[in-house]
């Protein structure tokens, strides 16, 4: 596959639940290694778009290609290339951190010889190596989210999809998550993050895609923008008031 070809291509995507359209003729193209923030008010279609990109939901019309593979037709090939972090931990409370990662390593058909090494590497990366044998139900929200990132990156996906990952995190835990996302981006992962935190989006992402009522209303490079400038753009694009 050509390296210059976008890793994510969305063409005329439509998603409707019954007669209710959530995404209307949505188009998006994301280059390999880019960090894109998906912004928009509640109900604008951000989470639905991420679920479609993850292959967890089927489009009503239009095309999605991840790494050149067409979704949902070639979903089996795409699955190994995607990692997902959402506001839910996607972890088992009654298993330890290590057991959780081992379970997912098995689901991703990771060779037995690599499993232990890769798990320890990920736990160290998110600063949970000392808590490897502790039950997940004893973890704080911030630790859970770090472990969720470890789970999402365990199989070394090309694309990391994040659905409001900062929900419920305090300032310190949010800061740790910032560092992990920056590190993931620097190590070559493509990141698409749905968030309401405009300041963070301006700080972390290279590009912001703003949705309103299922349509793309603004696609903007954020590298030279401050949080306040992005908030102004956001208000103008969506007609919404922002706190930033």
């Amino acid at each position, binding site marked *: 596959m050509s390296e210059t070809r976008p890793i994510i291509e969305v063409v005329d995507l439509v998603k409707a639940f019954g007669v209710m359209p959530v995404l209307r003729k949505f188009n998006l193209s994301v280059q390999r290694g880019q960090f894109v923030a998906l912004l928009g008010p509640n109900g604008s279609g951000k989470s639905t778009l991420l679920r479609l990109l*993850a292959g967890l939901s089927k489009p009503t019309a239009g095309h999605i290609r991840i790494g050149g593979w067409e979704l949902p037709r070639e979903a089996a090939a795409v699955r190994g290339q995607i990692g997902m972090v959402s506001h839910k931990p996607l972890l088992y409370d009654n298993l330890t951190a290590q057991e959780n990662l081992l379970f997912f390593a*098995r689901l991703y058909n990771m060779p037995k010889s690599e499993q232990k090494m890769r798990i320890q590497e990920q736990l160290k990366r998110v600063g949970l190596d000392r808590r490897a044998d502790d039950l997940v139900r004893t973890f704080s929200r911030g630790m859970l989210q770090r472990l969720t990132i470890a789970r999402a990156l365990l199989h070394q996906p090309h694309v990391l999809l994040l659905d409001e990952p900062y929900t419920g995190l305090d300032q310190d835990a949010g800061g740790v998550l910032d560092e992990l996302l920056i590190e993931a981006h620097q190590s070559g992962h493509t990141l698409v993050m749905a968030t309401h935190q405009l300041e963070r989006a301006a700080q972390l992402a290279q590009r912001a895609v703003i949705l309103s009522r299922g349509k793309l209303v603004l696609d903007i490079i954020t590298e030279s923008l401050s949080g306040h400038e992005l908030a102004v753009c956001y208000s103008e694009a969506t007609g919404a008031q922002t706190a930033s």
Partner: protein
Amino acid sequence: MNKTPFWRTTWAIMSKDLRAELRSRELVGAMLLFTLLAIMIFSFALELDRLTREEVVSGVLWVTVVFASILGLNRSMAMEREQGNMDAMLLAPIDRSAIFAGKMAGNFIFTLVVGVLLLPLTTVLYNVPVARPMLALVLLLGIWGFSTVGTLLAAMTVQTRARETLLPIVMLPVVLPLLLAAVRASNGIIADAPSEQWQAWPQVLLVIDVIYLVMCLLMFPFVVEE
């Protein structure tokens, strides 16, 4: 990335469920408590002579197994939905039907534990010897069928708000043929009836189990995908 083989996925999901359950005892504990209470309530409520007891005991046994399994099935699938774990599994390069097989195998083992403990308990409380090898086989086949249908239906109802009430309403009519065959076979075995009078029922059970298993394996991917 290659697709994870079916049996490896099934084993991983089943062993994960067993490990989590061994630690929390949340599911089997509730099922066992329910079983104990139900069997005792039936025992006290139905003051019956020995002959009538022999006639009703298989009904009591199976009603208890069905409701205990519903209790476990609801919880087992709810655990996957509450934390978004079903999504995490659906993201992995695995067969959807292997998720079904893994969850079903776990549910089967949990219900079997309850069924195995139910046999001596019923023998003591009803003074009817039900701990017999043939009855154990019928119990195994019946529980296999309930776990199969129940896992599929629990995956459907867990997505609704009224999942606790919806599962029995949806499940009971579907398991009726299974229940009928299981009760008929158990009645014959407990009453020491000639084998030609009841031996067709375990075979019917086996056929129903196979049909349900194939149908559920094929239908599960459509149930979990949006």
